[in-house]
């Protein structure tokens, strides 16, 4: 008896937006490589029913001040370069970073409270030290970020960076700067699909192109709310593929900062096994979950986790020779 298998391939009418980050000399910048994400016409790694032209990419995180609070296991690979964002960024590229994410942690008014000029210098320093494209992330204090970004966005003009984040409550300054200096934009929302949509609409109304937005639905570490983000990401991706233009953006996950704050990654709990092995695996496993949910850009910290995540992306893209 021959039983025919019914057809279950699905056609998704709307491709996810393609976003390019970085600009080479020919394109008005100084990058030696650029990164393109998005463009998929099916769910993550559903190669059997669509095309996935650009694999997810891994960015590594650099601060404008030493990461004193980083747990030992993830500080150690960078301990000798944390005093200099440029050297730190170089180390990331050696470890396989496809982008560098400069987090302007030092600008936090409740911390080192660095000036906008210092932030711009840090950005230039990273730019001059590596050839990969840049993500630049504010300190999270709205008022301060709005003072810092005008100088930073100008300092990296022409480099087609990805800057973030804008939120429902604070989007005007950065959106205007990204328009003026031709950067891409990270739109942040608090694990909420309606707000994600709303932030994109606000940027659109402010004259920004939807095609230049990457969305950040916030990220939780494995074991700390990851399932909420997972489902928001799946719903977002499905909506985008079905035709909702305001939801058809590549998705960014900011993982390192979350993972290295939870005790499963760093605490010396003997019954959980060696934290030196456990921490990187916790970060990698968090990344794996987000890849399946639709992550396009992952910001990570530990070199071992980055290596394993990139190897997994290659497998999921069918690029490992299988």
């Amino acid at each position, binding site marked *: 008896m021959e039983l025919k*298998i*019914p057809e279950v391939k699905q056609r998704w009418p709307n491709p996810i937006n393609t976003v390019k980050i970085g600009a080479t000399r020919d394109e008005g910048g100084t990058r030696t490589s650029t990164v393109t994400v998005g463009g998929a016409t099916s769910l993550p790694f559903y190669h059997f029913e669509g095309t996935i032209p650009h694999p997810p990419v891994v960015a590594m995180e650099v601060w404008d001040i030493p990461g004193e609070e980083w747990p030992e296991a993830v500080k150690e690979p960078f301990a000798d370069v944390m005093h200099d964002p440029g050297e730190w960024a170089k180390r990331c590229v050696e470890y396989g970073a496809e982008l560098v994410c400069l987090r302007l942690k030092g600008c936090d008014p409740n911390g080192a409270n660095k000036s906008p000029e210092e932030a711009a210098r840090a950005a230039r320093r990273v730019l001059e030290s590596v050839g990969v494209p840049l993500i630049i992330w504010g300190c999270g204090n709205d008022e301060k970020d709005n003072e810092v970004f005008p100088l930073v966005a100008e300092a990296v003009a022409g480099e087609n960076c990805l800057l973030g984040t804008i939120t429902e409550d604070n989007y005007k300054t950065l959106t205007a700067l990204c328009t003026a200096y031709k950067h891409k934009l990270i739109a942040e929302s608090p694990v909420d699909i309606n707000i994600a949509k709303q932030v994109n609409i606000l940027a659109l109304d402010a004259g920004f192109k939807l095609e230049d937005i990457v969305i950040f639905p916030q990220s939780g570490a494995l074991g700390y709310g990851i*399932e909420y983000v997972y489902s928001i990401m*799946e719903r977002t991706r499905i909506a985008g593929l079905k035709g909702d233009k305001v939801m058809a953006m590549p998705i960014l996950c900011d993982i390192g900062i979350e993972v290295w704050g939870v005790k499963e990654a760093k605490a010396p709990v003997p*019954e959980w096994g060696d934290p030196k092995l456990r921490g990187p*695996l916790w970060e990698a496993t968090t990344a*794996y979950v987000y890849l399946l949910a639709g992550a396009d850009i992952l910001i990570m910290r530990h070199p071992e986790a980055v290596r394993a995540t990139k190897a997994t992306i290659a*497998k*999921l893209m069918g690029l490992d020779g299988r």
Partner: protein
Amino acid sequence: MKKLTGIDIYKLLPKTNCGDCHFPTCMAFAMQVAAKKVALEQCPHASAEAKAALGEAQAPPMRTVRIGTGEREFVVGGETVLFRHEERFYHPTGIAIRVPDNLGEQELAERVERINQLRFVRVGQEIGVDLVAVEHRGDGNSSRYAGVVERVRGRTKLPLVLLCPDPKALAPALESIAGSRPLVWAATPENWEEMSSLAARYKVPLAVRAPTLEGLVELVERVKGKGAEELVLDPGGRGLLENLTRLILIRRLALEKTFRPLGYPTLVFAESNSPMEEAAEATAYICKYGGIVVIEGVESWEILPLLTVRQNIYTDPQVPNAIEAKLYEVGAPNEESPVLVTTNFALTYFTVEGEVENSKVPAYIAVVNTEGLGVLNAYADDKFTAERIIKAVKDYGVMERVRHKKLIIPGLVAVLKMEIQEETGWEVIVGPEDAAGIPAFLRNEWSPN
């Protein structure tokens, strides 16, 4: 799932409008059956064929399979959706760990004991490894297998998976432990006749594996023909992407097309060279439709992340993740110890509890019933108000257990400080906004005086 419509059912009826079912027409009766308001049995003239067809059509699109017996019985399958946000995933992916049959006596005992110990408590829930997969290495020693299976059986309460495609080695193993309902792996295009006979004779669930999806469908039909009913599908792919693709197709065919030959739970192997790679494969299979994932690693640092992925993905998204609202004690608090207030959103509570533990300062945590909402959401929703906090703290009688009259509230609701203070006369201290700040806060700023 595809349901039979009234018209479909009408076609199976005698179409005589005899009224013996107490409905005026066969059509009216058919509509009621389709709506599941009456049973087909109410028609005394319905043929056996019609009953079978209807029974088949109304069966769930994916079978549920039970492995093992007793308190550790493992249930897999019975899933109803493709995405957890559509409803929920019901039966969490089983984690099975391999035990090869060529280990020495001592090594075998240690490995099984280690597997038994792989249990943890996360967010108030016990999580652990579900199955032990005893692997026949097939190195010319088929008499050894049954003995090893028996020894493993004696050393663990977990259900077993018998990884043994050699019917000669399998038969004696089943003879001794079939009563504990192991899952047998696997019927293949080469051995299916003997394997399905064994599964049928010993009434144990059987995994089916073929090199292609078409081959799998054909094999399932054959195996069913031999009387084996409780089946588990091995997608049989080479490597992560092929297995993932087949798991997705099997799930879609089962749920969207009610394609019966693939309407079973799955079992898949994570086969890789390092713990990092094994975790990648296992994670992908947990997220995307793996019923049972067989792995190699037995170290707690390898297992804890996988059990956590499984716990997270299989959490019911429709139910707020709440814990019991009551007074919790961390360490051995006494009359000098601080009293902290938080919500009953599980994630908030366990994060706070973890940080209080980190601080090494024994403390009371008074949990207010916020109906599973976190601090900010609960505040916005009027579920974390001064009134509710005061009532909870008073109900728990915690202020009578401490010498000081100080209450620490989350930094995010600092605005409630004055109201609580004025109502009660307690001294209200505003704690950190982020739980991560609790250890420093308790060590440096807390004082009962």
